[in-house]
């Protein structure tokens, strides 16, 4: 019996989800020709990838650990040599009887698409992530599969780091205090908070952040991701319902999945659809039994980092109050960066913090440190200290990082005796509004609300992404490009993050470069405004 021919064909890679709802298409101006051309582009990449996989199988099959190849080999061997005992036979030493750790089809996207543009991601830097950074040059000998560093660096304008208030590099108020705390408390406490990991700094930070955000009490963790993943299961369990925005971050998705509650998704930023879903679910009850839900929690973010837009918080809070659902607000990007005094999305949109049950945030973006916090009522925080696994088992936040946050918040509040905080907040608001409006004038499709320090330039086509990124780097501007899986397949984009340490000259330079590169790459989907902007 000849080996079946289908064994020569590679398995189909998993099809990425393509469906883009109409509201989103309208928001990002995804027209039919653009979508078609983007899909064709993907199709070409996939076709080449499959062709390469086929050749790899045919030429390197003796070294491959893919079971399909082995099946081909074994069936051929059987044809010639009769029944051969495969398992445990020392002759077939190269295939040990294990299923491959990374099956060919799971890795397809990584190997055939991501590796082509790998040089645009993970660029190492040799300086602090300030307004200007030293990007390390890399080279590759094997077509981008592995990249090696050189000692050369390029000084680039940094439009990619989350350094909203400019605390990333050393700060005149924060750094001396951080070094002092490092010498008193050591880089770590080697212990969880519940054992011997609580220092005076941790207690001080919790009181400060609670006061800053406007809640009675707070609890801090060493990593923002772990905050979401371990708090959500502690608050909602089986029999509960979690309704989360469709664009929520991976940490929220993981936390919701780990909780054991039923998870439903509502259309991004659509309070009317949320209300409809709530009404339907309260009436319907739990799936299967029809018992009423134990509790319902709605999870939204302050700023959605891939779009740069704010959530419609006042409407969502009103709906949650009406239907007695609990609301969990993730302010990872908005705390410290928006609002008149930096208190986040609640201050900006006029929502009373007492109306939001749980406020979560991270210290990584605006405060130049690491870690996350939860602010809520005293009872909830007391319960979380008892029940949250990250508090009980994970190492406590590093003391110098804690001191950095304390000092940064003091600067923002003006408690360090200067008005640098207010100046930084005004600067970032002004800079982001200026940058966004200028980008729109030149004809790009730009996402992002007014006052938001994050904005996205839509590029759609997969081939434009690396072109945009490499050309910008050549002209000494460092930008970030995002594609699937962080965004929907058809909506790849370049994301810009403005910082308070960017000066007006920096922004003008950045605009000039992006405009030129946009022309080269063909990313200007809208007509430019009639009056030409003169760049120096």
């Amino acid at each position, binding site marked *: 019996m000849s080996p079946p021919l289908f064994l020569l064909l590679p398995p189909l890679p998993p099809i990425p989800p393509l469906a883009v709802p109409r509201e989103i298409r309208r928001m990002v101006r995804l027209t039919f020709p653009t979508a078609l051309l983007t899909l064709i582009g993907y199709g070409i990449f996939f076709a080449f990838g499959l062709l390469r996989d086929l050749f790899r199988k045919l030429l390197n099959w003796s070294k491959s650990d893919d079971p399909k190849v082995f099946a081909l080999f074994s069936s051929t061997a059987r044809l010639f040599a009769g029944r051969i005992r495969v398992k445990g036979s020392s002759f077939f030493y190269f295939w040990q009887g294990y299923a491959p750790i990374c099956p060919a089809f799971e890795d397809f996207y990584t190997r055939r698409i991501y590796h082509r543009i790998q040089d645009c991601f993970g660029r190492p830097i040799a300086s602090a992530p300030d307004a200007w950074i030293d990007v390390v040059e890399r080279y590759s000998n094997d077509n981008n599969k592995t990249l090696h560093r050189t000692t050369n660096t390029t000084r680039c304008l940094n439009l990619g780091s989350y350094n909203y208030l400019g605390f990333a590099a050393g700060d005149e108020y924060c750094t001396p205090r951080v070094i002092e705390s490092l010498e008193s408390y050591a880089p770590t406490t080697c212990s969880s908070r519940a054992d011997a990991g609580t220092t005076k700094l941790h207690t001080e930070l919790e009181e400060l952040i609670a006061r800053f955000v406007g809640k009675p009490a707070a609890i801090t963790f060493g990593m923002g991701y772990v905050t979401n993943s371990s708090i959500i299961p502690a*608050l909602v369990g089986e029999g509960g319902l979690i309704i989360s925005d469709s664009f929520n971050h991976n940490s929220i998705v993981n936390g919701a999945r*780990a909780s054991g509650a039923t998870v439903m998704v509502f259309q991004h930023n659509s309070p009317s659809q949320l209300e409809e879903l709530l009404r339907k679910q309260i009436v319907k009850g739990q799936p299967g039994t029809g018992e009423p839900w134990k509790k319902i929690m709605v999870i939204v973010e302050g700023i959605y980092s891939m779009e740069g837009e704010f959530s419609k918080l006042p409407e969502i809070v009103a709906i949650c109050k009406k239907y007695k659902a609990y609301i969990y607000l993730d302010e990872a990007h908005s705390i410290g960066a928006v609002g008149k005094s930096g208190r986040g999305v609640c201050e900006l949109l006029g929502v009373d913090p007492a109306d939001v049950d749980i406020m979560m945030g991270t210290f990584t973006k605006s405060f130049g440190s690491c870690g996350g916090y939860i602010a809520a009522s005293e009872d909830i925080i007391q319960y979380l200290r008892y029940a949250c696994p990250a508090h009980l088992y994970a190492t406590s936040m590093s003391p110098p990082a804690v001191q950095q946050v304390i000092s940064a918040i003091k600067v923002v509040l003006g408690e360090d005796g200067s008005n640098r905080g207010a100046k930084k907040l005004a600067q970032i608001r002004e800079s982001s509004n200026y940058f966004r409006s200028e980008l729109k004038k030149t004809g790009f499709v730009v996402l992002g609300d007014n006052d938001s320090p994050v904005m996205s330039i839509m590029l759609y086509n997969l081939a434009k992404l690396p072109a945009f990124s490499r050309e910008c780097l050549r002209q000494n501007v460092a930008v970030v490009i995002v594609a699937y899986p962080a965004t929907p397949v058809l909506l790849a984009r370049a994301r810009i993050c403005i910082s308070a340490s960017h000066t007006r000259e920096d922004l003008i330079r950045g605009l000039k470069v992006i405009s030129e590169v946009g022309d080269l790459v063909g990313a200007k989907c809208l007509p430019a405004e009639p009056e030409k902007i003169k760049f120096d």
Partner: protein
Amino acid sequence: MASAVVNIATAALDWVAVAFDAPFAGAVVFGVHINGHLVAEVLLIAVLLFQLTRKSYKPPKKPLTEKEIDDLCEEWVPEPLHPPITKEMKVEPPTIESAAGPHTIIEGKEVVNFASANYLGLIGNENIIDSCVASLEKYGVGSCSSRVFYGTTNDHIDCETRIAKFMSTPDSILYSYGISAIFSVIPAFCKKGDIIVADEGVHWGVQNGLHLSRSTVVYFKHNDMASLESTLEKLTNKKAEKVRRYIVVEALYQNSGQIAPLNSIVRLKEKYHFRVILEESHSFGVLGNTGRGLTEHYGIPIEKIDIITAGMGNALATDGGFCTGSGRVVDHQRLNGSGYVFSASLPPYLANAAIAAVNYLEDNPSVLTVLRRNISLVWEVNCICLLDITCVHVFIIFRGSLF
């Protein structure tokens, strides 16, 4: 009265009998004798068929009116977000007022610290503090970005290379938090349909990873090799060879202090073709002659273990975690490890502290001799516990004494 009813009943029955004995009742149709009961049966079948062809009766479903939905929503009362606060929940841990070294200060008093996992005594080490200060002055505290977007500094790559060189593996990957290493690694390699055999005594981080992976998880008795063997035997069937199968164990169990017998595990793994994920948070820098972990302790070549993860918040006295293994294993995580892609990178000064700690460990293997001497001293003095004699997790016994 009764007789009248009886008469009527008899008359009715007679009539029925006559009807059944009607002329056709005794006929022979196609060789079949038609008797009375046949008529009744045919009638019954006809009635049944008639009923079956009718539409089933459903009570008409009226959709709820808006007012009714409003009423139901008003009636529904959710449970509170937290259960009632008990006295147990109000217990506060001690607040330390200095570095968490072997001696620390609590409420102004100097105490001996048996609660921090500072196994090599690196808290307060001058070299590490100096390298951290240099790093803080150069890079500031946070890296402000994910590893994928300008959050990678030269120090991160150097740290990964240093750890890989120390462990003699091709490559390693750095995570920004110790506990996130294991719960990112397991879902990256174990998907729905895969089989995982895990020890029942693993800590919360591993359990979270197992839950997130959506694979079939089977637990075996804590540190019991016979139980492991029987579980592996049960799970070996022809179909199972096409799925990925893993054994997940900790080298030194955080919850019980026991050491996993890696030689038996490797023997079983090779017999039943499972891959091993080894969690070395508490054994890295502690076990083995030079602190290279459980594989050195048992003299097993490191290539036999597929994936090793560890948190650096214990022996290395820094924060963060790493995972090491073959090149393919590490490369896969750079796009699929959720704690790597979706989280900010480790602050550069902590990566520097890790490099300094590994250098110190490599240059001073005698620190392990001191550690082992201290452990045996405590075992001599206190024989309360009936744990495994090779256990090094003495702090579990004394955790309560700090309060």
